[in-house]
């Protein structure tokens, strides 16, 4: 029977949290989510989260920016309206390219930075007017909250186990749809 029940387990120390996450995983309890007030180093590894691919995204966005700059410079300065400025060549893109290096660099950075941040916001579902979803307001202050799937586990054993890992508070959240 899938109860849909979730335990909200609060910790007030990051070291204890790390220990608890490792113990929960070794006992094969399912951790739905962990909310922390600051980046706890190594937590993603302890939880078994996969690597983020945002850096790869950023690299691709940078290449797009570089291409846009190249195409734009070639069209504007070489093809559409070539001008002889101070005797500098405007016959081919390659000859004139050194003058465009600053623009190519800036647009690479512009695309890589902004598109990566937008991707981050979209993937993490954060944007203006988005409602916060941390279950306890103290998780932005000094508390750490693990959402544990109660599943079919015996609640008493599970609670006992969680208190033993150093939890400061545990609350059972009934999921209405399954109740």
């Amino acid at each position, binding site marked *: 029977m899938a109860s849909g029940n979730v335990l909200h387990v609060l910790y007030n120390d990051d070291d204890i949290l790390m220990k608890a996450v490792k113990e929960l995983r070794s006992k094969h309890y399912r951790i739905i989510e962990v909310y922390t007030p600051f980046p706890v*180093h190594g937590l993603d590894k302890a939880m078994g989260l996969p690597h*983020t691919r945002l850096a790869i995204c950023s690299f691709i966005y940078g290449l797009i920016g570089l291409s846009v700059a190249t195409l734009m410079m070639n069209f*504007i300065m070489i093809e559409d*309206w070539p001008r002889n400025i101070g005797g500098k060549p405007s016959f081919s893109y390659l000859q004139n390219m050194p003058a465009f290096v600053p623009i190519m660099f800036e*647009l690479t950075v512009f695309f890589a*930075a*902004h598109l990566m941040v937008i991707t981050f916001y979209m993937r993490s579902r954060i944007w203006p007017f988005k409602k916060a979803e941390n279950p306890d307001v103290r998780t932005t*202050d000094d508390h750490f909250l693990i959402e544990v799937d109660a599943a079919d586990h015996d609640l008493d054993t599970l609670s006992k186990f969680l208190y033993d890992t150093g939890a400061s508070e545990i609350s059972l959240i009934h999921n209405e749809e399954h109740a």
Partner: protein
Amino acid sequence: MSSHYEAPIREPLILGEKSYHDISVDVGAPILGKANKSWWIVFSIALIAFLWGLGCIVYTVSTGIGVWGLNKTIGWAWDITNFVWWVGIGHAGTLISAVLLLFRQKWRMAINRSAEAMTIFAVVQAGLFPIIHMGRPWLAYWVLPIPNQFGSLWVNFNSPLLWDVFAISTYLSVSLVFWWTGLLPDFAMIRDRTKSPFQQKIYGILSFGWSGRAKDWQRFEEVSLVLAGLATPLVLSVHTIVSFDFATSVVPGWHSTIFPPYFVAGAIFSGFAMVQTLLLVMRKVVNLENYITIVHIEFMNKVILLTGGIVTVAYLTEYFIGWYSGVPYENYTYLSFGAATGPYWWAFWALIICNLIVPLTLWVKKWRRNIVWTFIVALIINIGMWFERFDIIVICLSKDRLASSWSMFQPTFVDIGVFVGTIGFFFVLFLLYARTFPVIAQAEVKSILKSSGARYKRIRESGEDLAGTAADARTSTYAERTNLASASNAANTYHQSTVHADALVDTESKKSEIDLMLAKIGTYDPATQTADDLKKISGVGPVLEQKLHQLGIYTYDQVSKMTKTEYDLLDEIIDAFPGRAERDDWAGQAQNLKQ
């Protein structure tokens, strides 16, 4: 724990007995509290200066650039001086947050937020000058490569001035998103701490609904690292390109190949001086001396020493080349024998004294750890770096190749007014920021607290385990939790149905506390459970049992889970509650009765 290890020889970066909660309280205090009188006084002065500058800008735009002191010989003067000065100041913030992040310098965390704010506000001031200098600022969009009414005449991408447009707008916008992304968790902290519904709404919007999931943090750190990697060459490129404005020209004193590195070092030099100026005041006004410590000040002074040294070498090189070239025109460049003895001798010596000589005092450890002296040196560098740009621009132009057109520059009140106005505008923005933004990246500071906090260094040295030391009594009690919970969720009127405590409890917050207690000790379900006889517990009489029933406590099981926190809560609610609960060990008794 070994993961928090830091060599004991390193001085603590967070002083005092600080817990995670203390950091939230200290960083939130200026926002959640009221502005003091000195804030209002400084803000009013800044606002007046800003309005005066605004008047001068309106006068300039409506009358024309002729109201400035420019003449045929000197076509660039204060406006470009101010532009370069502000852009230079705007280099420290991104340097601190990006370069120091790549170098894993923990001390950046206390100052990066304000330094980045300063960067953004300074670049805004810088951007004003070219736009005003256009004379017709409503045509500013002509610098963009957009198809237009002149056929398809495009902007000139061979020009450093256009590179500037791209460099500075990229720099401003990337710095802004870098800053804002770092702010999200801190806005979320304010959102969750404040008790005012208005602030909850505002900071809720500003925080983009940040919830602090483990995956969010993983992405957050990755994004910060990649942005730092991108911003580092970006920050170097910006002032390099600004220096191209001069270096690609044919004016003696400008066409110098040393300019790009020299300008970048000078920009960092002046930027750090401005950070010192602002933070030395701010740490006092908003009581952050425990976070922005003398160690931070000394580190910044060391960066000033390094970049000041680079600038000094560049000065000497320029001076030497000016003399060694033997070209007569070079004798009136900003760093030359002619400049030192000519009509602009005062500007030359101001530059040498402020940027070259005074910062040398920071080699003395005692002086670079002296707050008052640091502040004075920082102010002097700010002045010196303004003179550097004035010297480059005005002295080099004043004596050009045609002796008959030699000229001097006299600023008018409009020149001065616009400059003072931007200083006012800058401080208006910074003061508003200091009142409404978390001025320290508290989430990041929390992440180094256990390695670099004075308290934790002490605990580690005493050989104790750091695990569990972060608990703070103020956030671990029902009172605090419900206080916060009821404030953030005032609409929540749902309470446990087994509680019939209206006679005992009158406030909503008390009811929430009872709910929370029941959440921990368990609720009684009349349909499946039977009530136990609580009177069997020594100390519980019929009256007390009835009151416990009203609170939803019916079973031994519930009582057996009680701890001191619950006893204290019951003590608060029930008048005749005996203080013996703990002494008689109700929980233990109930545990025995259960079996």
